[in-house]
């Protein structure tokens, strides 16, 4: 699992430090959708110009390795647009494993369906080594829906409207003197 989350600083390519990660996305019918490879040499895919496409109702398969040296006493985390997410954890890696693979169900990992372009970064840090990286990810829907037809779009507008109401309440006011009524 940790290897899937080896995704840090904004880069132009799917660049990883000290590790390698292969990502494959599949649509709801388990048909291959896209592939991205992250490695210290720059990798392929996962850039802003060529983001890694992921179907909200599909899955993402990951396969990662840290070379010959394992990362022990590790902690891992994933950020979206540099904002920390609940996807984080830690482990001792007592088995000295250097690779990991698995599958992530996108809809269960992301309870709210917001399609669009995301910057995802992450890291796995251990006793002596660290693996960091980032990629651009395009979350798509099948069939494709334009933003105004989706609920998150209207939620975003509602948040803006709420913010404007709060701003209106925050406008300066005069403290009027209290007059005694006789």
């Amino acid at each position: 699992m940790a290897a899937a989350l080896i995704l840090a600083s904004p880069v132009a390519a799917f660049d990883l430090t000290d590790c390698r990660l292969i990502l494959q996305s599949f649509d709801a019918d388990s048909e291959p959708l896209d592939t991205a490879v992250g490695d210290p040499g720059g990798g392929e895919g996962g850039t802003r110009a060529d983001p890694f496409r992921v179907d909200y109702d599909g899955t993402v398969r990951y396969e990662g390795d840290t070379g010959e040296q394992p990362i022990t006493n590790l902690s891992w985390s994933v950020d979206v647009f540099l904002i920390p997410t609940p996807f984080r954890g830690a482990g001792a890696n007592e088995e000295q494993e250097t690779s990991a693979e698995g599958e992530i169900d996108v809809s269960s990992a992301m309870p709210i369906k917001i399609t669009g372009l995301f910057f995802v970064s992450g890291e796995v840090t251990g006793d002596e080594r660290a693996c960091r990286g980032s990629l651009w990810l395009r979350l798509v829907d099948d069939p494709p829906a334009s933003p105004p037809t989706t609920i998150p779009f209207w939620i975003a507008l509602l948040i803006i409207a709420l913010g404007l109401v709060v701003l209106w309440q925050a406008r300066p006011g005069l403290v009027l003197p209290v007059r005694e009524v006789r």
Partner: protein
Amino acid sequence: MPVRRHPFLGAFGGILVGLGIGLLFVMFEFTPADAWTIIASIAFFGIMGFVYALLMPPPSVPRS
């Protein structure tokens, strides 16, 4: 006449506006500040809200 100001409420309102606009940026795949797009949007509108509430002139004194 003393003026009552609410800069932190203004900052909160601005943060909400920035969050909503940041979400729209994501949906429309418009990332003007790269990886910092959401944080920059929230910070910008939060500061704007704070400044608005702190510096905006108060309403004119009502005539009695």
